[in-house]
């Protein structure tokens, strides 16, 4: 088979105009580089106990205008040093915000400046909760680098990678979590840290 393939490729060379698809991709990389996101950690100044229920929105770099929504539960243990943090994220429908699929949880610690990093491992967001490619189940590894910005708000960067339906890095994605003081269905969606003036 290998010999056949070599012969095939040799003969194929006779049949083509010159194409170099990888080169065209590399050229696009170069041209788009100035417009690509450089991941920056926002300023985080204070460690706060932000325990509570949140509407958490993840704006993927793939399509930031279609944030993936979660009902999130932040639990902070301030009795230890450093503080402990556990976040449970329940994917919700992007149409009616009802629960979709299983929740996933990660635990970590909060540094004295309020920063934290959580590794959720491999997670699945079912199609009904995936507005990026509506209806398509997505599997990804999910990393969250965040900050306790205020008693009612947390934001930061999302890392990891989408594994399914195709392999795509999530670097450059962001999240915002707004404390629920009323109904989840009407809570405001904020999917990134505020842009500094």
């Amino acid at each position, binding site marked *: 088979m290998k010999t056949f393939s070599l012969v*095939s490729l040799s003969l194929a060379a006779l049949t*083509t105009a010159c194409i170099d698809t990888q080169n065209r991709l590399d050229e696009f*990389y170069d*041209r*788009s580089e100035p417009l690509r996101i450089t991941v920056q950690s926002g300023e985080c100044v204070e460690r706060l106990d932000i325990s509570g229920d949140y509407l958490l929105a993840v704006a993927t770099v793939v399509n930031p205008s279609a944030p993936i929504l979660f009902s999130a539960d932040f639990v902070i243990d301030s009795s230890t040093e450093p503080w402990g943090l556990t976040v449970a994220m329940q994917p919700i429908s992007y149409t009616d915000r009802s629960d979709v699929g299983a929740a996933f949880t990660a635990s970590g610690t909060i540094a004295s400046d309020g920063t934290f990093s959580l590794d959720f491992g491999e997670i699945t967001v079912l199609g009904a909760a995936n507005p*990026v490619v509506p209806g398509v189940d997505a599997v990804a590894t999910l990393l969250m680098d965040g900050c306790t910005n205020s008693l009612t708000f947390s934001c930061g960067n999302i890392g990891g990678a989408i594994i399914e339906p*195709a392999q795509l890095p999530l670097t450059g*994605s962001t999240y915002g979590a707004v404390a629920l003081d009323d109904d989840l269905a009407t809570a405001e969606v904020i999917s990134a840290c505020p842009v500094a003036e």
Partner: protein
Amino acid sequence: MQRRPGRLAALALTVALSATALSPAEQAHASGLLVARFGGEHGHPTTYNLTAMYYNPAGLSLLGGTRLMLDGTFAWRSFTFNRDPAGIDNTLADPNVGTGTPAGAGVEANSGEASLFNVLANPFIGFATDFGVEGLGVGLSFYVPIGGVTNFDKVDDNPDFPGAEDGPARWWVIEGTLRAMYFTAAVAYRIEDARLSIGAGFNLVLSQMDTIRARNSDGTDHLTSNGQLLEGRALIDVSGLDVSLSAGLIWEPIDHLYIGLSYQSQPGFGTTRMTGDTTLVLGAGPVDEVTPTPSEFFNAWPDVIRAGVRYGEPGCWEVRLFGELARWSKLYEQCLLNTTIADRSCRGNPPPGKIVLIPRRWEDAVGVRVGGSWWASEDAELVLGLGYDGNAVPDKTIDPALYDTEKYTIALGGRFALSDSLNLSVTYTQVIYPDRTVAARTHQPGATTGDIESLGFTEPERSPDAAGTYKHAIGVLDVSVEATF
């Protein structure tokens, strides 16, 4: 062969019959990606040369001895696509608010003219022998009867829209190739008592696709999202190996009248599977972490039925009429899946594991050609051919990557005996395409994408709207050398 009287009369008859080819049936359709022009005007289902291994394997039995044929098809292709701005999914009044194509410079970067001028070379290599058995022909060959190469010119750069330089055809193809290469073993035998030749061929078909196009996760042509780069790229590099079969008959009911009928099956006898990798870059994230996704690509080539007749007086004149039905309706869609997903499928809404799903909904296509030969001397046969091919691609799935429309051909050439055992054939064919204009999709009130539901497509099948005007022209020079040993 000897010069014979009445040669000019024969030429007149040949030309007259050829001219009738310009009256195709209104409902005739075209032949999509079929590009077989090897053999020039002697490439047809009653041919005696080695291109019979593709057009009709029965023709291998019409000449004896041991033969070698080297054929090169050299083509130039000029193509322009002027994308209609009305085909853009969503135009943004404020470039920093919303997802779509910013008005002004964004629209300019996402519409207008894309053009290419490509020069292609395509070989046919054939060898056959009768092993000393009268009426037998056994042959091997290599050729590329389906597919092509596309390489669009770059256009003006726009730093705000880095995809623009690849031109407005980039959502369908920037550059790439999709083709099927055939390795054929064929055998034929002429039953002299019945004046009937029977032939069959076995093909190993290497299908290959290597293409790069612009792509968004949702199949739209949006350039930005709230001022942030959204347009991405998909590089697909896949290949696959299939088998196919061919069979044919040529009957000579009276001297020098040949009637041929042949069938070429679909490679893989249905949908072909190619495997490889897909590199996706979507959105504005850093690209240094991009890794390819193992992929499989499902495609369908047509089966082809050919029929033809030729009659003449050897060494004086000959007329030919032949046609083909390419069943492009087999190409319903093209589907790219992630092979790491166990329950992947091209079916369902959404299809599990889908990376790209392109609706094609192509239609069967008919081509008809008529031609003739006139021997100016014993060693010089002049040929003329005229033809018509219909269109396999409906308006709703047209795009610059796999373009087709009705077309007309005119071919001129000659076959010259360089010695008793060596012949040179040269044929130039001009393919004339009428311009084709396709209207933009409608937009429902408030929608940020064109309406595909009314076209019968589901959301996972969404691709940008390729509305616009297409202009196409191809010239083909076929040069072949046939040696007899």
